């Protein structure tokens, strides 16, 4: 499972609960600010992800640091991530959440992950294909991750299309693991 898949689940839940309470804009603003801060300094994220540290201490820290600065619902969301041991994906969760908010506002941000940089022709092809499929203007975000070996992954607001070599190998591995040995 790629990071975006996990992140999407939590982001979707956050989006649904903030929309229900009319807090989408606040969430977008506050979480984007948090993401910017975390991009600069990841030590807080590291602390929240350390398995050795007691959950209670992490929650205490969250409430002390963000209790006054963020909506209570958002602090509780961070607490859920800590309890589920998913704090290390916080940046990705915020990224997916932002994608959902932007989509809601008519901006279709699509992330494409490739092992090597996309050629401009490939990029143009991809954008036109996606625009045709969704009927929306595409804002393409490009990421290079050699870890996927080859192929590409497209992450849209509502789906992840994984066509990477790493995914293919993972499929083979899963099939091998289904072999009964007893």
């Amino acid at each position, binding site marked *: 499972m790629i990071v975006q898949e996990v992140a999407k689940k939590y982001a979707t839940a956050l989006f649904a609960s903030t929309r229900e309470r009319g807090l989408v804009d606040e969430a977008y603003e506050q979480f984007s600010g948090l993401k910017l801060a975390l991009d600069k300094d990841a030590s807080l994220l590291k602390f929240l992800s350390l398995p050795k540290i007691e959950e209670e201490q992490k929650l205490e820290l969250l409430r002390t640091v963000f209790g006054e600065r963020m909506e209570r619902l958002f602090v509780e969301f961070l607490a859920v991530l800590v309890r589920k041991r998913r704090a290390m994906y916080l940046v990705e969760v915020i990224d997916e959440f932002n994608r959902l908010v932007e989509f809601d506002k008519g901006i279709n941000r699509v992330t494409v992950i490739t092992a090597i940089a996309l050629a401009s022709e490939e990029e143009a092809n*991809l954008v036109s294909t996606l625009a045709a*499929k969704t009927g929306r203007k595409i804002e393409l975000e490009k990421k290079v991750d050699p870890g996927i*070996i*080859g*192929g590409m992954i497209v992450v849209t607001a509502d789906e992840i299309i994984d066509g990477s070599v790493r995914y293919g190998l993972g499929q*083979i591995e899963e099939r091998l693991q289904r072999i009964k040995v007893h």
Partner: protein
Amino acid sequence: MDFELQQILTHALGFLIFVWVLKRFAWGPLLGLLEERREKIAGEFDEIDKQKAEVAQVTAEYEARMKEIEGERRAKMVEAVKEGKQMAADIKNEAMNEIRAMHEKAKADLQRDVAKAKVQLRDEMISITMTAAEKVVAEKMDDAKHRDLIGRYIDELERA
């Protein structure tokens, strides 16, 4: 001779008086004493006979009780032996069941361990194979292959 006769008569008279006095005052009590003594002796004999009879009765009762106790004891011992036999059988059964259970558990443990080892072996083989495959694939990936894969992905996206 007169003198002698007189003397004799006097003696006789004296004797008669003695006898009379004796009979009048001493004979009765003397005979009574004798009779009393005789009765006492007879009574003692009776007592002895009675006691003997009692002893015999007690002895008989005692023996009867002894026999009874003996019987009871035997019955108790029979009971004890029976109980002992049952207990021994129970202990043996329990031990057998325990051994059987231990055996079953050991068998199950072994089967589980073997199954676990097989799964572990399979997973390790898969892991090694996949690591090798990944390395080979990554090494085989050149620009042409990258472009090919990306192009095919976009084509498939178009068709989907």
